[in-house]
């Protein structure tokens, strides 16, 4: 029995099966549910670690099942896939702990955790997909699994947000489907191949391929929240905090960005895409999104909305890194997949803590909150400085490689974009830090819960601390083997040399 061929499938199943079982659990079976959740998360972590080690040593993990005539369901663990899988696995574990703490005592938790697990399943599937059709399957599954999470609270506002989300993602999905099917009709294959599988295609398909590229990027760009396809993201803030955290840091937005990486590298191939002349517009679009998102974030008083616009801006770093189309920029873009995830999830955890512990939802209510919740705000500070790109937090590494990549590719305007973005990031994060640490604490908080000696429940406090530490470590220890940067370099080598 060749186990290597089944491990990718097992990785997907390790969250799918607990998820399905959790659906059937009654509301009161808290312990069993928690145990299942954590079991799934740890099993997945173990499997992924095994694969990371294996891939590092040249093993090949691939599951292949027939799906359609001439098309197979392929799960394959390459370096790029593992980068994303690793991120989502670690963050799933952390987010699960957080969600257990966050939702304690609230209704419909079985449903919530069921869809939560499905959401992770879809994300892991997106990461491991070995061809476009498998990707498409998990990509749509992701839409479906997040929708119930998004409208979990069942308010009219939530429903409308969910509606907007669907309008965007469904149209995006249709565009992606169209692009994929068209591509398939031209090439007869959809297998992800390093440096793309289109190189053999003749000149006569040039226009068709450009349109296909646009279609696919538009389809993926919806989830990656590239302007002007970002409209759903700020509205999605009505969801509970763990969902927002997962949505922004791991699942949806990242799946979009990851998809763009896949399409550029493994479908079109960087050289081919550059030859088509589509990379430059993509880079411009990403640059514009970076600035636009930051600008909008400046004017949000709602904390989560501010973070949402920040996500719009930050995720486009990934796209930018890809679109610059050079080995170093690739490192920057790909590694930002992980770095942004770590930093943004920290910020969302902290925002959730503030909301849950003190009832704070707005930036203007955050005066002096650092006195009341020093640990939470310390984690927040690390995340915020990471977003600004201050060393030695992870964001610095990403910006470093993006900037270097831009210089290498001779795209000097990118430096301006990076600088502008850093400036704007500072402009919308530093006032928060300032208010939290240095302004006077008000006499009472909007809606305070008492957690005894701790500033908040341990399940709420631990996750942001872990992720903040990870974000710091990802920056400080970037040159060590198995660090995100190290993997990103591996990926870049595979694509370019």
């Amino acid at each position, binding site marked *: 029995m060749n186990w290597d061929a089944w491990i990718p499938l097992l990785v997907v199943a390790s969250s799918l099966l607990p998820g399905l079982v959790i659906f059937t659990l009654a509301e009161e079976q808290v312990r069993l549910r928690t145990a299942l959740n954590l079991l799934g998360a740890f099993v997945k972590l173990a499997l992924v670690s095994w694969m990371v080690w294996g891939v590092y040593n040249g093993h090949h993990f691939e599951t292949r099942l027939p799906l359609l005539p001439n098309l197979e369901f392929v799960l394959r663990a390459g370096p790029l896939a593992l980068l994303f899988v690793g991120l989502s696995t670690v963050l799933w574990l952390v987010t699960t702990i957080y969600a257990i703490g966050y939702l304690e005592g609230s209704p419909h938790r079985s449903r919530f955790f069921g869809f939560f697990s499905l959401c992770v399943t879809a994300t892991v599937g997106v990461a491991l997909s070995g061809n476009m059709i498998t990707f498409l399957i998990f990509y749509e599954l992701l839409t479906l699994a997040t929708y119930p999470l998004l409208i979990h609270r069942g308010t009219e506002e939530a429903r409308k947000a969910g509606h907007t989300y669907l309008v965007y993602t469904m149209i995006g999905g249709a565009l992606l489907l169209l692009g994929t099917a068209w591509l398939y009709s031209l090439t007869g294959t959809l297998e992800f191949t390093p440096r793309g599988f289109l190189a053999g295609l003749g000149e006569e398909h040039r226009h068709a391929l450009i349109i296909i590229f646009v279609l696919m990027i538009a389809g993926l760009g919806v989830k990656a929240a590239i302007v002007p396809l970002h409209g759903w993201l700020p509205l999605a803030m009505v969801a509970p905090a763990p969902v927002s955290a997962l949505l922004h840091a791991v699942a949806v937005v990242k799946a979009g960005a990851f998809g763009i990486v896949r399409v550029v590298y493994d479908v079109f191939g960087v050289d081919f895409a550059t030859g088509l002349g589509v990379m430059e517009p993509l880079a411009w679009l990403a640059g514009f999104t970076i600035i636009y998102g930051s600008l909008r974030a400046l004017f949000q008083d709602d904390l989560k909305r501010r973070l949402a616009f920040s996500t719009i801006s930050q995720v486009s770093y990934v796209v930018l890194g890809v679109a610059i189309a050079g080995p170093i920029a690739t490192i920057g873009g790909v590694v930002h997949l992980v770095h942004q995830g770590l930093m943004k999830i920290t910020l969302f955890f902290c925002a959730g803590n503030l909301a849950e512990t003190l009832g704070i939802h707005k930036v203007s209510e955050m005066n002096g909150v*650092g*006195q009341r919740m*020093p640990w939470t705000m310390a984690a927040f500070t690390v995340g915020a*400085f990471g977003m600004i*790109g*201050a*060393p*030695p937090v992870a964001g610095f590494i990403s*910006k*470093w490689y993006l*900037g*270097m990549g831009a*210089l*290498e590719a001779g795209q000097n305007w990118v*430096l301006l974009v990076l*600088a502008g973005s*850093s*400036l704007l990031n*500072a402009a919308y994060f*530093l006032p928060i830090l*300032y208010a939290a*640490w*240095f302004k006077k604490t008000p006499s009472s908080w909007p809606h305070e819960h008492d957690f005894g000696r701790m500033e908040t429940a341990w399940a709420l406090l631990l996750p942001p601390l872990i992720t903040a530490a990870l974000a710091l470590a990802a*920056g*400080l*220890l*970037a*040159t*060590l083997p198995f660090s995100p940067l190290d993997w990103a370099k591996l990926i870049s080598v595979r694509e370019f040399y």
Partner: protein
Amino acid sequence: MSIADSLLWLAVCWPLLLALPALHKRLPLPQLLAMLPAVLLILFVVDNTLTVPWLLFGTSFSLDEQTRWLLAVIVALWLLVAMMLWRTKHPAPNNYLATLFLLTMSGNIGLILASDLVTFFCFSTLMSYGFYGLLIHGSNDAVRRAGRLYLICLIVADLALFEALLLVASNTEHLQFQLVQQVMSNVPTTDFYMAMVLGAFALKAGIWPFSLWLSTTFSATSSPKRLLLVSVPVAMALLGMLRWLPLGQYNFDAWGLILQSIGGVGILYVMFKFYAVRQIRLFPAYAAIAYSSLFIALLGIGLTYPSLWHDFHYLAYPYIAVLVISMVCLILLLGRVEHEHQPPETTLHGIKQLNIYLKQKFEDFIQWRNVQLHKLNALRHAAHQIVLQSLHVMHMQKLQRLMDRWSVRMMMAVMMGMLLIWLMI
């Protein structure tokens, strides 16, 4: 790992570690304890380099004769400030004064010890933001407004530095200062690099025309922080220029001219301000601007004439140290003066009259002091010019020997002197 290496490590990390509230709340005198490794380092280590390849892009710290006594001056300064801060303030339970203090200090120490660009940049960031926190902690609105100005300058400066860093990194893999100075003096992007570095450090040092933040902040903040304000950011920015600029390699006529004229204008500006401004307490700020303007002008000369720079670049580090020391002396002195002439609140009635009277006296005193100080300053500038010119004439090897001999013992004397001044006041 040798003891010297460990001390280098500890000098940076120990204050950082102590910055955790959980730790420094449980230790006696944490702010003094934190300096211990640095003091030991100054006392016992000569010429050591520590390379940490796994940290960031590969980090290295080094201590040589030059940095050693600059570090000594700075540590002495921090000691002084620590004692002043903890004498006048009684930290509340949730007070981050200690945290901010320790963060800023470790940033400062790390920055001096850093021997490559990225490490320097990292610690500079740590120091700057920490210092911002220190500045506005427990302060009034005026300080906050002023602090905001400082912060904006800081962000912009850091951005420029980051771009400069990228330029370097795209030209060379090794980011050691010496290598960078060689590499960056002869690449197509040199001019851009220089512009970025100069702009950034000029902002950080508050050199004219970016001096607004320094004077504004200085006038708003309290005494111990003023010591830091005119010493730490300004001095460290000057240090940054020394480290980052490709000095003594090629001749950059244009840049030399620009720097010289900026320095000149800066000095003129300060002179004008000495006349225009009547607030005696602002003098140290303008003195600092004058100092750094002069420094810039000298750098300009160094850029124009690399050989000249080769001959007397040894003076640059003492110059920074002198700046710190003289600023500290000036502030302490002026603070004393100001303090003595505060109206004592003895009785309720008659206090008004006394007030008016004292105010009149005080005005007179300021005017007198104005004139005196101006003279003093002019004198000192003249002296400086003379010293520099004479140094140029002097035989260089002799000077170098002098420099070598002026080491730890000398430094201790300076520290003792500072301590004495403080005790006297």
